[in-house]
């Protein structure tokens, strides 16, 4: 590799010298600083999001511990509040499934919905379970907690009474919380100890590079928003017959808020927040979309998707049945956004959209 690099460098330098003498460049524009983009991504988006999530999870755990000893309904209300905050913050880390998060498999461990309520009941009744078992992937994480906290059309009083009368259930919630706590700490420690350095120094665009990860996961997340969060409940896979209980956060009715948060995170990852992001990279490359800058087209499409999502009335689980056309309108805008992010962006940046290495041509 070193030798190859040397030979090629010499070759190119020779070429460039010959050319430059004849044809001096008017004003050299500096090459795009990919490291600055990745550093911004790590320091201003990924790590702060992980830390914010961890803080919200810690608060949820302490609120739950208070409730465990007090059994008071007001403390339970506080648990539910903290739960919703933590679940919302979770939406801000879901995208980063590479490096440490890929090892931990965050998506599969934190947010498989719909949850398997029968499995949860079995686990609680037996008081003997291995939360690391594949069988329990859909009996833990936020959806499992949501089911236990927000119940099946039960009053708050009866939910609290349920907790108070079942030490097993209390222990189960603690175990689920602890499972997430352990995993998120592993991820944050890994980012702080070594992964951040590796991340900001991986400057290629091939499979396994940081840019490759970000682009691929951005698309994975958008596809997940389109299919799992909106399309499936809307009935896109079931001949147009809505399945409301396949909504994310079905019991607490926060589906649209979380979907919006997911969209926000995708946009943040794309734009680098207030710092350098893919939009700057595309502008630097003068990426064009049939006459307008590609970034303008993408920003418009983010706005269109956001507007249509915001316009949906009421919890998504109701809307897919009574206001399907509103949901469908949002769905269509997300599809258009997906085409831009999945086709135009990687193609323009020379990023390979795949998780599989290949021989090329």
């Amino acid at each position: 590799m070193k030798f190859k690099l040397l030979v090629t460098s010499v070759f190119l330098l020779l070429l460039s010298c010959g050319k430059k003498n004849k044809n001096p460049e008017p004003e050299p524009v500096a090459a795009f600083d990919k490291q600055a983009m990745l550093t911004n991504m790590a320091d201003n988006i990924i790590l702060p999001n992980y830390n914010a999530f961890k803080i919200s999870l810690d608060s949820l755990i302490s609120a739950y511990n208070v409730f465990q000893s007090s059994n008071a309904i007001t403390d339970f209300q506080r648990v539910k509040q903290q739960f919703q905050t933590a679940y919302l913050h979770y939406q801000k880390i879901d995208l980063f499934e590479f490096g440490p998060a890929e090892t931990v498999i965050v998506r599969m461990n934190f947010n498989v919905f719909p949850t398997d309520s029968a499995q949860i009941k079995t686990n609680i009744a037996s008081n003997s379970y291995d939360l690391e078992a594949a069988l329990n992937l859909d009996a833990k994480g936020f959806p499992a907690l949501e089911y236990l906290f927000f119940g099946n059309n039960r009053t708050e009083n009866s939910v609290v009474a349920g907790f108070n009368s079942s030490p097993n259930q209390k222990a189960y919630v603690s175990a689920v919380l602890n499972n997430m706590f352990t995993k998120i700490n592993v991820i944050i420690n890994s980012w702080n100890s070594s992964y951040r350095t590796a991340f900001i120094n991986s400057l290629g665009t091939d499979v396994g590079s940081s840019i490759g990860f970000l682009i691929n996961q951005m698309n994975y997340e958008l596809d997940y928003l389109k299919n799992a969060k909106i399309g499936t409940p809307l009935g896109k896979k079931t001949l147009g017959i809505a399945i409301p209980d396949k909504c994310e956060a079905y019991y607490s009715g926060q589906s649209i808020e979380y979907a919006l948060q997911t969209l926000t995170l995708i946009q943040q990852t794309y734009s680098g927040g207030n710092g350098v992001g893919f939009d700057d990279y595309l502008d630097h490359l003068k990426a064009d979309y049939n006459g307008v800058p590609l970034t303008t087209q993408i920003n418009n499409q983010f706005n269109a998707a956001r507007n249509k999502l915001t316009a949906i009335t009421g919890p998504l689980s109701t809307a897919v049945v009574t206001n399907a056309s509103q949901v469908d309108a949002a769905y269509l805008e997300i599809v258009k956004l997906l085409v831009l992010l999945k086709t135009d962006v990687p193609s323009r940046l020379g990023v390979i959209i795949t998780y599989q290495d290949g021989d090329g041509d």
Partner: protein
Amino acid sequence: MAIKSLHTYLRQPVNIAPLVIFRIAFGALMFLSISRFILKGWVYNMYILPKMFFPYYGFEWVKPFGGVGMYIVFALLLIASIGIILGSFYRISAILFFVLFTYVELIDKTNYLNHYYFVSIISFILIYLPANTNFSIDNKLLKNTEVTLVPRLFIFVLQLQMFIVYFFAGVAKLNYDWLFEAQPLKIWLPAFSHLPVIGGLMEKEWLAFLFCWIGCIYDLLIGFFLFNKRTVNIAYFFVVIFHLATSLFFNIGMFPYIMITITIIFFREDFHIKILNILKRLCKHSRIENKSTTLFNCGKPVIIACVIFFAIQFLLPFRYLLYPGKLFWTEQGYRFSWRVMLMEKAGTAFFFVKDKTSEREIEIDNKHYLTYMQEKMMATQPDMMIDYAKFLKKEYEHKGFTDPIVRAQSYVTINGSGSRQFIDDTVDLSKQSNSIFKSKTWVKSY
């Protein structure tokens, strides 16, 4: 007259050494490539994991064996490569290699690569060449004779095959986008702006143009310079530089190394004789007394077979002219033409299946049926969309849909253009023909 003198030229006896070296080098490269393929887990990813495969037109009967079966195929390929290297059971090994390698390639056009096509062709040629009649297990054990001279034709076919690869790769670059837009290099090179020393140049437009033109001129001319005894050395130097540069920039696996190694077939015969003697000394190869210098038959039938074989290869790259539409867009007649790294094309396709009775439609999650590689390839290639649609039709018939209608919405970008609708999204793709004798009129015009 010219034909007659060419025939005389091709019948001239020359030393067999280049052929022997070629046999050993090719066998060794194949052994490495196949091992690498297995170790990278690609046998599983490409031939065991997928739920469906994309066969070639006319070869729909080619199906993968199950899990163990595919590994046996690859193990046999390794054994066959060893057979080729050692020249033991050479002909059987060459046939086995050609048949199995081609079989594997025919299973799924997702994995089509020009260099796999090249390997198939070379191994096909090797079947007919007596590359095992010197410094081989076969000639030691079976006959204890050694052939030292062969007709020049036997070396020439390999050289001509290499020439074709280069020359048509050059012809393919004679298009507007490549020469006057510097595409796709204008997209690909800036991705390397982080490289040490040369990184700063990667975003320069003139560099993309320079690379495009050098690449084109190189491909068109290198074959001629390799054929010329006086320029072969300097030409080879450029071959090495060129392939190392491509391997640095592009994810093209073994191909550059294969080309660098076997291009030595153009070297003068004393080079090969020297190498062969060194190898013989290293292997303590005892001298064989029974030297045979008998020429192999190189009569009219052989020449005619060669002419047909190469004529096909000269014509295939131009078959695209028989189809309407822009080649890069429709890809009708794109494969088997040495179009290497010629465009940046990407797409996204959404498939829908409609139940005729209820008039209701579902959207397909492609990930459920296709690997990432298959989905990516399918999204830009119309013939693969038909295969997929036909698969979905069957799949949903089993699930109880009556007369399923399969349509797709697909958006494709080519060489940095904004993505646009690729095919007519009202057409029932499962009813379209994949015949190469029909053009795919439902692909939107570019």
